[in-house]
């Protein structure tokens, strides 16, 4: 975050709640709390919503791209639209800005049905930042931003506020310094900001953005979404953005709407919406949803389900190696149990998030008998056991009792402890020493080739 971001819009417009906007998104935890508070009333308060999508169905030919989708965005709210490619995100945005006419249902912006409005009236209510825009010509950045004033120009009369609005929009997006440069010569990030400035120059109460960060590097992704966030907070704009990156969506949006197969399957605060089960439905991918230690927003780590494991696997150990092993095995479809894991360890957090049945024990004292017994029970039901990362001797001994054991090194970098471990366990029961990413393959290999055969 750059707290020294110039904020000319807020400075120029007195009707801003200074309490809200004085520190734009410096503290995400704080904003997150606000978001949670907003959404308590948000979904019910349809009368307050600026953009209201009700039962919208859009078909291209035979197939319905959107099937009775409803969604609302309130003033001062930033809603993220997520879903896999082809889920209908772009179509929904186009139904809102009037480019696509719905087959049934209605889109209301500021109380009026978009499809009863002229293009001109619609474009005074909702501005659009398109996914890709043809900007390969010789217009300057200022020319392009000025095109945002099109809805206010008469056929024969000019818009008196154009110059001021363009200047404000360009200052706000920090595009003024290349106002005279030809847009074709700008970098992708600069061009994206010019397009954003064009949308701001429209001075609309609602803003829709289609993948505004798709082609940007990580710095520009964050800056673009910060700009939208600031606009929402200081101007009370209702913003709806299709966002590919779930982490970014979770970090910047008040609410997230998940689209899957033309249906809006969930809407709500990021921490409620981004769950493993929902992501599996929406993206067909298994993912670990954790809390980002820096931003406190949910962070999503997807695991492609490449190997299909139909068995029960027990994981013991600690640290990132165990965490990755648990997530990979779960993604592969195995019934995963875990233990004994140290309390507060990342492996325990992943296991909890993935609803894995887990035995934990304090990291700073010997494993007690109760935990040992619980882990033994889980091991007895497992088809294979995995030891990932380091574990106390008592836990190692527990795992070794199993007849199919896979050993996973911590990040493949076996230290003094690791090599000693490997040699100690090699005599007894090691099937393979491998990296966490390939553990599902190895487990399956272990199940196909029983250990006894090797001995």
């Amino acid at each position, binding site marked *: 975050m750059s707290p*020294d*971001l*110039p*904020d*000319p819009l*807020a*400075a120029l417009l007195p009707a801003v709640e*200074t*309490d809200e906007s*004085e*520190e734009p998104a410096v503290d995400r935890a704080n904003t997150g709390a606000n978001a949670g508070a907003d959404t308590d009333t948000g979904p019910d308060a349809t009368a307050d919503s600026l953009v209201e999508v009700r039962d919208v169905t859009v078909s291209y030919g035979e197939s319905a791209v959107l099937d009775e989708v409803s969604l609302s965005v309130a003033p001062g709210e930033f809603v993220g639209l997520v879903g896999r490619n082809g889920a209908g995100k772009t179509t929904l945005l*186009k139904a809102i*800005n*009037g*480019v696509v006419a719905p087959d049934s249902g209605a889109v209301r912006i500021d109380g009026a049905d978009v499809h009863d409005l*002229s*293009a*001109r*009236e*619609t*474009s*005074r209510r*909702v*501005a*659009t930042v*398109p996914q890709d*825009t*043809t*900007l*390969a*010509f*010789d*217009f*300057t950045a*200022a*020319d*392009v*931003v*000025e*095109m*945002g004033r*099109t*809805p206010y*120009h008469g*056929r*024969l009369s*000019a818009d008196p506020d154009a*110059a001021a609005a*363009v*200047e404000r929009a*360009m*200052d706000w997006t*920090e595009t*003024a*310094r*290349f*106002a*005279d440069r030809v847009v074709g010569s700008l970098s992708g990030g600069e061009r994206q900001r010019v397009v954003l400035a*064009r949308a701001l120059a*429209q001075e609309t109460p609602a803003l829709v953005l289609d993948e505004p960060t798709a082609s940007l590097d990580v710095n520009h992704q964050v800056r673009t979404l910060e700009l939208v966030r600031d606009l929402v907070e200081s101007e009370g704009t209702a913003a709806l953005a299709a966002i590919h990156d779930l982490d970014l969506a979770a970090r910047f949006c008040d609410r997230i709407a998940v689209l899957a197969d033309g249906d809006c399957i969930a809407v709500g605060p990021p921490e409620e919406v981004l769950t493993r089960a929902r992501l599996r439905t929406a993206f067909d991918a298994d993912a670990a949803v954790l809390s980002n230690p820096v931003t406190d927003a949910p962070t999503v780590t997807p695991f492609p389900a490449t190997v299909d494991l139909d068995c029960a696997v027990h994981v013991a150990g600690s640290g990132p190696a165990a965490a990755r092993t648990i997530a990979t095995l779960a993604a592969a479809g195995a019934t995963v149990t875990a233990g004994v894991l140290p309390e507060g360890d990342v492996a325990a957090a992943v296991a909890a998030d993935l609803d894995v049945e887990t035995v934990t024990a304090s990291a700073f004292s010997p494993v007690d008998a109760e935990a040992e017994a619980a882990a033994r029970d889980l091991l007895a039901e497992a088809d294979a056991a995995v030891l990932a990362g380091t574990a106390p001797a008592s836990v190692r001994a527990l795992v070794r009792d199993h007849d199919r054991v896979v050993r996973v090194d911590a990040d493949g970098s076996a230290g003094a402890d690791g090599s000693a471990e490997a040699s100690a366990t090699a005599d007894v029961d090691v099937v393979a020493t491998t990296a966490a990413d390939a553990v599902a393959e190895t487990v399956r290999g272990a199940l196909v080739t029983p250990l006894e055969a090797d001995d």
Partner: protein
Amino acid sequence: MGAATGTDSDRSGGSADAESAAGAAAGGSTTDRPAAGRRPWTRAAVWSAGLTVVLVITALVSATIGPVSLDLPTVAKATVNAVGVPTSVGVSVGGLSTFGLTIPVPSVRAEYTYLFDLPVDRTGEVIVRRIRLPRIALAAVVGFALAAAGTVMQGFFRNPMADPSIIGVSSGAAVGAVATIALSVSGPFGLQLSAFLGAVLTAFAVYLIATEGGRTPVATLLLAGVAVQTFLGAVTSFLLLHAGQDLEQAIYWLMGNLDNAAWDEVAVTLPVAVGGVLVLLAYARDLNVLLLGEEDAHTLGIEVERTKRVMLAVSSVVTAAAVAVAGVIGFVGLVVPHMLRLVVGPDHRVLLPTSAVAGAAFLVATDTVARVGAFAGGPLPVGIVTAALGAPFFLYLLRTREVHSL
């Protein structure tokens, strides 16, 4: 909220810094800020005025050149004497006879009052007013119309190779004209009228073919135009084969010429061209926005299909009016907009009027070459001159400058 005041002053300080930094980057002066400083209509007026001066000088110089050499003062005085204002306009009905039928055709007759009567050599004045000026004026009007329509078509199709005839206007005019010549139809404005009708009907047909459910995709329009042009080319070829003695006249028309220019033709074409370009000028801003793509244009408040219809209809009529009186004169509508785009930039509010005036000057100049060439060694249609001069010049621009896109 004790810190609120401090935060506010911090912010205004920060934004002032940003402003001064932006001002410095933009050249150190706030009046250079393009958002506030650029006035496209002012630029358009200044450029157009300058180019109009070029046009007038070109026309006067052109009028001195010919079998009888005249000096510039004589030409200038004769031209001033030729300036008249219409005092009464009447409509009379003539007849266009074809296949034994007589179709009534209204024609406009205007009485003019001439404002000046400068003393000037009588012979020189007759040559200038009756022979050279009508042709120069018609060249100017046709160049004006073709360059304006070419500018609009290039923007409309977002295609640097688009020209005024891209949706088949010229092919339609050719069929109308060649049919009239080959089938020996006569009547007032017979050739011009049938060429005009052929052009407008063709444009309308192409539009109908490309339109489905109220939408006219630009790509479909382009392809429909190419297909219809090919078909009408076949019709023209067939008519030429059966033209018999009229073959030479028909081919001469097809090459584009201003040999039989008369004030009547100027009087009919000028209002259509100027009126059409004024309408197009009112849509110049929309044309800029359409360059972003139709969906973007829609989200910026442009009624895309309606705007496309207006621009297509008006530029087709303007082109048809030019082609009807001058035949198929190529390259003016293609080259002139590119030349002007290099000079004044892509903004159609500036580009459209300047292209139109530059096109007028360009065609006056090339037609002078055609007149001199004809005087020196047999007939030389201006269409040949524009292509022969325009194509190498276009290639030169392509190689040396940035004519790669719009």
